[in-house]
């Protein structure tokens, strides 16, 4: 049984790191890289080797409804692959960047706690356990946002922390209501229990969770922490936050809870649609006016999450394919974009687009990969973003929601506009840059090239034949809805 190792490995690494590396960061880097690599291999094995199977792991041997169980199905494995991949590239990117901030081994330790928290959320089958892992991840994320030690970083972390504690309270009340109604905490047993409850109660629980996890997702009225936090964090952490944290803690939980536990109640699907549409448009409108490159990227995270929410709200298989696929794609290109921003910041010493210029000669890797990432996020073929947006728009039209499809279309157009703005001012502007302040080192380049290649490779996932082994099992798990609880309970 490999499921618990997804939490054990990063957690052990997190606490081993400060023990083995006192002054030098070398061992810390090696240890974290090694453990993340192990996670990549494990999750890859879990996803490709045992795809379609639902594994249930009972902690200390206790059965449901008493014990805590870990559930690993295709959807969890998919998320695990995503988290580990982005974490690996983020760690490859980190060393030089963190050294520049005066970094020490604590960074890597916190990083591994973050990974452990996210993995925990993804593999757990228990509601309260999920809450705990979520808080672990949030705590690590808060500390990492403030890691640079500058004024605005503390500010962002503080605001994020206050808002996160509000949402934690909401989630806790939701858990309390769910527990009082069903006397259990396992997701599967709650799903069974809520079927017998009055629909009003289900709506209340849903509303509380929607608000609580909506904040982690950064859907539109709950988004205000995101641009601050994601733009203030060190670049590799921004990549982790925007790339996977909002998905592992937000989207994943929303899908899991509303589809597999509540069985996709229509009211919430409507809410998903509306939140998604609002997030797409307002997020991208806010983004296009930014001059700080990382803030611009952060607002785009809101807008792209909107696409995922919109696709989730369609309640069709095609829509869910779009949502899952876009989730992976967004993780890839958004992380890459944040690495680009980090590399630019290292090389030019500024994040303001107006102070940058034509660096395509001086920084060929950065500008090349950022072009690829920009085109991906704007939905230009042959990159991955095109295909997921295509699927989402087609799904929206086929689901009889052309209005929402049109919102997605307009959002895509504005996304393109704002990323061409980044290209024009940041990387290929008229003003040539003579001199670089810092050097973009091999690790950064490796991370960027890796993700740029992934931008192309992941577009293959939509090809029929490959899709059957990658995205389809994930979607199958989700679209089983409450039937999934039955499978878990029977194990």
């Amino acid at each position, binding site marked *: 049984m490999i499921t618990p190792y997804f939490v054990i490995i990063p957690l*052990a690494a997190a606490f081993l790191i*400060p023990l083995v590396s006192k002054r030098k960061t070398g061992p810390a880097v090696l240890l974290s890289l090694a453990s993340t690599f192990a996670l990549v291999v494990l999750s890859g094995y879990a996803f490709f080797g045992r795809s379609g199977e639902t594994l249930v792991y009972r902690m*200390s*041997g206790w059965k449901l409804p008493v014990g805590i169980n870990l559930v690993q199905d295709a959807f969890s494995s998919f998320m695990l692959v995503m988290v580990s991949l982005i974490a690996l590239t983020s760690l490859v990117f980190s060393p030089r960047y963190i050294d520049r901030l005066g970094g020490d081994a604590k960074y890597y330790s916190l990083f591994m706690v973050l990974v452990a928290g996210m993995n925990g959320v993804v593999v757990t089958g228990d509601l309260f356990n999920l809450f705990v892992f979520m808080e672990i991840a949030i705590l690590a994320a808060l500390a990492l946002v403030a890691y640079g030690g500058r*004024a605005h970083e503390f500010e962002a972390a503080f605001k994020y922390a206050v808002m996160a504690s509000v949402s934690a309270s909401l989630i806790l009340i939701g858990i309390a209501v769910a527990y009082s109604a069903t006397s259990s905490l396992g997701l599967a047993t709650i799903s069974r229990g809520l079927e017998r409850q009055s629909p009003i109660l289900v709506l209340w629980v849903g509303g509380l969770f929607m608000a609580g996890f909506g904040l982690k997702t950064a859907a539109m009225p709950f988004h205000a922490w995101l641009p601050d936090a994601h733009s203030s964090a060190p670049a590799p952490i921004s990549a982790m936050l925007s790339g996977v944290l909002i998905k592992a803690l937000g989207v994943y939980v929303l899908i899991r809870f509303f589809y597999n536990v509540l069985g996709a109640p229509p009211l919430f699907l409507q809410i998903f649609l509306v939140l998604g549409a609002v997030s797409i448009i307002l997020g991208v409108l806010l983004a296009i006016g930014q001059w700080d490159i990382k803030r611009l990227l952060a607002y785009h995270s809101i807008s792209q999450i909107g696409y995922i929410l919109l696709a989730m709200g369609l309640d069709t298989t095609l829509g869910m394919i779009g949502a899952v696929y876009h989730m992976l794609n967004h993780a890839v290109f958004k992380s890459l974009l944040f690495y680009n921003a980090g590399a630019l910041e290292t090389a030019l010493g500024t994040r303001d687009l107006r102070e940058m210029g034509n660096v395509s000669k001086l920084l060929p890797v950065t500008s090349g990969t950022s072009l690829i990432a920009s085109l991906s996020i704007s939905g230009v073929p042959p990159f991955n973003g095109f295909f997921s947006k295509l699927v989402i728009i087609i799904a929206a039209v086929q689901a009889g929601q052309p209005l929402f499809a049109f919102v997605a279309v307009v959002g895509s157009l504005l996304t393109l506009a704002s990323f061409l703005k980044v290209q024009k001012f940041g990387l290929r502007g008229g003003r040539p840059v003579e001199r670089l302040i810092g050097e973009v080192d091999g690790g950064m380049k490796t991370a960027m090239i890796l993700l740029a290649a992934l931008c192309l490779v992941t577009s293959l996932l939509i090809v029929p034949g490959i899709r059957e082994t990658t995205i389809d099992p994930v979607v199958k798990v989700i679209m089983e809805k409450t039937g999934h609880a039955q499978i878990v309970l029977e194990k």
Partner: protein
Amino acid sequence: MRDVKPGLTVIVKTVNRLILWMIFLYGIYIILHGHLSPGGGFGGGVVLALGFLGVLLAYGRGFSLNWLRLGTLRDLEYSAPLLFLGFGLAGMAWGGAFLANFLSKGKLFALLSSGVILPLNIVIGLKVGLSLFLVVLALAEFDPSQGDDE
């Protein structure tokens, strides 16, 4: 000006000296009886941390840090969760699942009973006590009057 000794008055110090070991004893008692009565690793750990906190308040930072080795404390704190994970893995190896019991369960209401819970409580107590103390210590290190305006 006479030079001010760090810490509080001699009364506090004396009382603290007398009471400290009792606090520790109480904390350890709670930790060890976690599986029998209310309490356990977390509660006991907090009491332990309060004991340390007393020293810190009474004698000041300098003395406390001399008295306790910060590095050792940190290492202990970091290794506590590792120990916890170790027990979990041992459960996997011998008990069949993560954190499963692999020790003898003993007799009900005896101190050495309930298998793996007792050692886990001890580990948790260690972790909580040290963590809390270190958190307070870290907060005490800040000097709001110092700092760089940005």
